[in-house]
């Protein structure tokens, strides 16, 4: 029961007054970010990251991870009241959440969404508490070949699991890797792909890419849809909360299924968005009355929210133990660790006990604080959304520009942010996934280093990736996931004459 002791110690770290304050600030900012279009978990954290450079890392990660939880909660508010998903993972919440609001049951829908988010996160945190130390201990045995194999697994599972065409997933991913390689080679000191431009010496910062791709790109997309916010209003009182909780008890099976889907999709880098859709689909298929889905079924709100929050939370498990983030936001947090001078990976659990367990304890507390904050402040957030987009859009552009500038105090970064914004718009429209690109940009140097170290060990022979059962099985799994779309295609071809649409 070493974990319990460690966790108690973590609570002692997290339960100090300044840290509780950071938690509250983080949650509030997070909900705001989740509610506003154009600002999401990933770029919200990226914009605020430079402000934490001088903070104590434990307080900084508590605040930033709370922004993440807040954003997960906030996405549900716009989905239910305005039929506008504030975040991609709350798209599935609109299917039944908005019809409920139209029927005058907005308060129930919101309570369901918040409670489900909370339940999903809680299960995922418990999973992290007990699984993370084990995984970290296991990962201590990893050499460079094993690390590269795990990274390979991460990227291959993107190809295999994405709903986007595999060629486009590979394009986005390789673009991320290539951009990560720009600048000075950390091993030989040689300059790569700078083509004589001194501004390219330090390479592309992924924070700039995240702010541009998700922030500016999202503004352009929102503008295209020509948003006019017309929404329902809602007030939540205690009676409704308890009634809804009582009603939700009968849906415990939906919760368990959604938690399982969410945790799985979060640890393997499927992410919160596919998890929410998958969970919604499962809930409908398993339901006794599938026809009521899409017309305001309470399980249709609970299922995607539980899975999204479980996935979003458990995405931190591989980030902490292996240094491999399970979602773009986790990738930004990982970048933060590196900037604060902490090396993510198994050693973190030995050398930075305060940090790790403080963070894990703050996940429990942050979600409780988050649940209370959102349940009590819904009317306020709904009011914010009534501010016309013609005011919100330029303010968000200004925030993105400031965020990009503060990373290195460089105007070139602000210009690059705009370029990434246009790239993000086109990629989104043409169905190139952004998550693998960001992950490749963050992990590029690390993946390259572990690949080169492995090659050094084996004198350039790829056989090192199946030289022992451990690395062999990870690499093998990676190959299977990579070929998954092909296997599916062959199965479809053989089972019927239907043409596979690629």
């Amino acid at each position: 029961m070493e974990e319990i002791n460690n966790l108690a110690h973590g609570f002692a770290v997290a339960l100090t007054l300044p840290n509780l304050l950071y938690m509250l600030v983080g949650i509030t900012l997070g909900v705001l970010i989740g509610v506003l279009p154009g600002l999401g978990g990933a770029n919200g954290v990226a914009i605020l990251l430079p402000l934490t450079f001088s903070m104590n890392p434990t307080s900084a990660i508590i605040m930033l991870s709370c922004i993440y939880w807040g954003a997960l909660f906030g996405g549900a508010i716009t989905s239910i009241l305005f039929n506008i998903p504030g975040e991609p993972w709350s798209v599935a919440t609109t299917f039944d959440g908005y019809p409920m609001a139209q029927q005058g049951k907005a308060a129930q829908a919101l309570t369901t969404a918040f409670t489900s988010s909370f339940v999903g996160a809680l299960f995922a945190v418990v999973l992290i508490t007990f699984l993370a130390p084990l995984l970290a201990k296991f990962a201590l045995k990893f050499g460079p070949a094993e690390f590269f194999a795990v990274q390979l697994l991460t990227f291959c599972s993107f190809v295999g699991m994405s709903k986007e065409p595999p060629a486009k997933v590979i394009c986005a991913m390789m673009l991320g890797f290539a951009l990560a390689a720009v600048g000075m080679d950390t091993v030989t000191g040689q300059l790569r792909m700078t083509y004589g431009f001194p501004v390219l010496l330090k390479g592309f910062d992924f924070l700039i890419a995240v702010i541009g791709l998700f922030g500016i790109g999202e503004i352009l997309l929102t503008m295209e849809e020509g948003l006019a916010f017309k929404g329902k209003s809602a007030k939540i009182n205690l009676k409704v909360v308890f009634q809804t909780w009582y009603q939700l008890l009968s849906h415990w099976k939906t919760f368990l299924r959604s938690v399982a889907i969410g945790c799985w999709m979060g640890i393997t880098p499927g992410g919160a968005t596919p998890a929410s859709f998958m969970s919604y689909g499962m809930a409908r298929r398993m339901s006794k009355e599938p026809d009521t889905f899409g017309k305001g079924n309470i399980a249709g709100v609970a299922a995607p929210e539980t899975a999204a929050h479980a996935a979003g939370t458990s995405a931190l498990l591989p980030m902490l133990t292996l240094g491999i983030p399970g979602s773009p936001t986790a990738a930004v947090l990982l970048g933060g660790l590196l900037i604060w001078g902490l090396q993510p990976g198994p050693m973190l659990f030995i050398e930075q006990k305060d940090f790790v367990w403080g963070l894990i304890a703050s996940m429990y507390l942050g979600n409780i604080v988050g649940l209370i904050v959102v349940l009590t402040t819904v009317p306020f957030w709904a009011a914010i959304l009534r501010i016309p987009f013609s005011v919100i859009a330029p303010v968000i552009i200004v925030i993105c520009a400031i965020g990009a500038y503060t990373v290195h105090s460089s105007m070139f970064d602000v210009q690059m942010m705009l370029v990434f914004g246009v790239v993000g718009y086109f990629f989104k429209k043409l169905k190139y996934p952004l998550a693998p690109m960001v992950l490749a940009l963050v992990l590029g140097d690390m993946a390259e280093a572990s690949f080169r170290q492995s090659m050094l060990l084996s004198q350039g022979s790829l056989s090192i990736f199946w030289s022992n059962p451990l690395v062999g099985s990870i690499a093998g799994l990676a190959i299977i996931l990579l070929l998954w779309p092909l296997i599916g295609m062959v199965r479809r071809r053989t089972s019927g004459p239907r043409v596979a649409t690629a």
Partner: protein
Amino acid sequence: MSEETPDDGPVVAERGPELVVALLLMVFAVGVILDSVRVGIGWAPDGPRSGYFPFYIGLLLFLASGSVFIRTLLKWKKPSAAFAQRSQLASVISVLVPMIIYVVAISFLGIYVASFFLIGYFMRRHGKFGWLATTAISIGVPLVFFIVFERWFLVPLFKGPLEQMLGF
């Protein structure tokens, strides 16, 4: 970034942008490959050279974007999905152009003054706000950012002639 597909309808087909993006990715991949070859893709006495890893990245990028390119060409004649409506693209450009001007203006005016103009422009042009509300918000927001960043967090942002005149 303009879509010059010779379509008459109000909808811009997906194949045009699809082809251009794939082509740009291919060009980028060629750049990666050529530069990797330049720094060396083989082995030096002390291990793999700098181009060893990026070379394969460039190769994969070229193959993947090439396959998108060819596939788009192969089904060129078939009806293509819509990329966006003309009017939608117009509103995207109506945001993108001020954004570009804004970023350029920051270099000359500093972030605060440029933000004032950006917010003011949006509120007048897209929001049809009165002068009073426009002035209040477009001055107020940069002022709040100034207090938060310069005073509270002590993070200096990019300043222009106005701030210098005022002695910051």
